[in-house]
């Protein structure tokens, strides 16, 4: 009886100590789920999800405060990926947050009109606008995510949305037309 109690207590002490050690030794800073969710988001930082950027939205999803269908730039593929990650059911994009648009866009500053007020530079979440006070501004199109956050602050409406031009490298083969049911099979289906 006593041996059993001692053995069990000893075992409990050993494993308790081991677990405690492991918890300290392999402690992970931050929430890995937030990182995983953040990695799936398109990083436009556009705020259409009603959160100030992709990371805050990821944190809200992780806390269960936001739904997974609030990201219009990510669209269906992001929703499916998030559903896979979190073990949820995929659902259509929430129309309140916007609509999915497949054409990628960037912004372009009309340098003839720009007055060099720097308001757009302050609005850009990825530092993709170059310029300084009373100097012409320009967009580094390779860095632009197409979030359009720079457009509302512009006092002279010199920022325009332009679609990203497709070239030989970004061109995609179209999906072939799906097979049509042959007369025999469609007849069978009717029967």
């Amino acid at each position, binding site marked *: 009886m006593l041996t059993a109690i001692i053995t069990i207590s000893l075992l409990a002490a050993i494993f308790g100590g081991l677990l405690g050690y492991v918890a300290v030794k392999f402690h992970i800073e931050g929430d890995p789920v937030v990182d995983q969710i953040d990695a799936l988001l398109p*990083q436009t930082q556009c705020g259409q999800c009603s959160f100030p950027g992709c990371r805050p939205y990821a944190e809200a999803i992780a806390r269960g405060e936001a739904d997974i269908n609030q990201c219009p730039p990510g669209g269906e593929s992001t929703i499916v990926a998030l559903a896979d990650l979190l073990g949820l059911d995929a659902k259509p994009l929430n129309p309140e947050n916007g609509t999915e648009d497949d054409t990628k866009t960037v912004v372009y500053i009309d340098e003839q009109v720009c007055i060099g007020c720097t308001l757009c530079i302050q609005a850009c979440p990825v530092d993709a606008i170059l310029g300084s006070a009373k100097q012409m501004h320009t967009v580094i199109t390779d860095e632009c995510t197409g979030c359009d956050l720079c457009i509302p602050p512009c006092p002279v409406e010199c920022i325009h949305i332009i679609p990203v031009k497709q070239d030989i490298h970004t061109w995609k083969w179209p999906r072939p037309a799906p097979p049509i049911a042959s007369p025999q*099979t469609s007849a069978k289906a009717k029967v």
Partner: protein
Amino acid sequence: MMTPRKLWSFHGGLHLPGHKHVSTQHASGAAFIPERLILPLQQHIGEPAEPVVNIGDHVLGGQLIARASGYVSVPLHAPTSGIISDISEQKAPHPSNLKTHCIIIKPDGKDDWTELEAITHYQQLDPSALRNRIRDAGIVGLGGAGFPSFIKLNPGTRTVIDQLIINAAECEPYISCDDQLMREQPRDIIQGIQIMQHALQARHCIIGIEDNKPEAYSALENTLSELSISDIEIVQIPTIYPTGGEKQLIKVLTGKESPSHGLPLDIGVVCHNVATAASIFAAIQFGKPLISRMVTLTGDGINNPGNHHVLIGTPVDEWIQHNGGYHPAVQQLIMGGPMMGFNLETDQVPIIKTSNCLLALNSPENSPPAVPCIRCGACMDVCPAKLLPQQLYWQAFARDFDKVQDYNLFDCIECGCCSYVCPSQIPLVQYYRFAKTEIWAMERDKRKSDQARLRHEFRLERIEKEKQERAERMRKKKAALNASKSAASKDDGKKQAIEAALARVREKKKQNDSDIKNTNNLTAEQQKKISEIDARRKKSTEKPVDD
């Protein structure tokens, strides 16, 4: 005579009607100088070349017009002398039918050439120097993919390459440019192979040639015996499509399987196209860059089919008109062969370094519309990469791009065997191409979003830092202000000194004011004059009031 070599076979494959005799009836035509040459800056895999000429410049044949940018890139040379008439976007031979950056040369017809630097004794040259020469000549694989050849001539960390394999299979129907080249320039090819062997330090070389090209085989064999070369072996292999695939050819000749996602180099084998060997010979022996190539012009839509040396950049329409034109009933134009080529929507595109064949057909193989898959498995039986085409099709159809990669989509060589045998006429290869480009696009988006995340995080960090710095400055200023206030009492003495100084200045000013006046010490006469003037002035100012 050598004992027949043991050959292996690869999975699947097809026996296709060759149609090769159509274009090998007469000797190849010489290159002609067209009205204009359109030279895309990217004719190879990797980074596009950067132009080093300006519009209006006069260039000589063989002159560098665009330099390589980055490691996986090759330069571009002027095929003949002329004026750079434009550097702009032009349609390139690509399934997308999109435009790409091109240099356009208007030839002057003189065909003046720049001084070429030949190497007489390449054997004394270091392999790396030899590779650089091959790179500077702008040579890419002429078999179709267009990978820069100098990279494939680098054995890397490996000290020994077991075998250099020369791909002379040319397995796709209709195409016969390599066949013609072997018949006409066997010496150039063999000497080019020797240069490659030196660059790779490869001990052994095998030329694999399909048994439907007996003339080419005997031409090469005769050359080998004439030059009494023993370390190059020429092997006839059965004609099965796609024996000319790199991995398939290696399997047939050596029995070795190239690893999935790997390179033949991983198993000590390097494979080059036979036409590449000839162009490497020209580059080393004469210093001549890659400015022309042999191209097959064939099909029943062509009046005068044959093989021709064509300057790189020659527009297809001009080339065809120069060589007898189209048959009136022509309907379809294919760049490449019938299995792996793509439709050209216009013939106003240039021949580029990777163009091997132009096929014009009167009766396009208008496949009937696809019907549902009956799961017969014929596609799997013919797949030379031992994939499961049906599974790939389902996953690509459902846009499940993770699953489709689990089924090794990227081992697919797009040979078209599966589509060819499919009884439901499903365009299987189109689905794989669709899935591949979609996956590449997703990877590009991922890279871009990672970049955006980094920049956004950096921005937040910067804003936070600026905020802290501003707060720090404010704090310092405030502290300084408080310090000066408390120190004010100590400064009384200074203040008094300033006051005293100011008082002195005021005093002095007063004195000066009384001192310097020209009305002091006047004589009686002067005083009288002043009084008179004053009276007159008074009178004159009062007058208008009287009126």
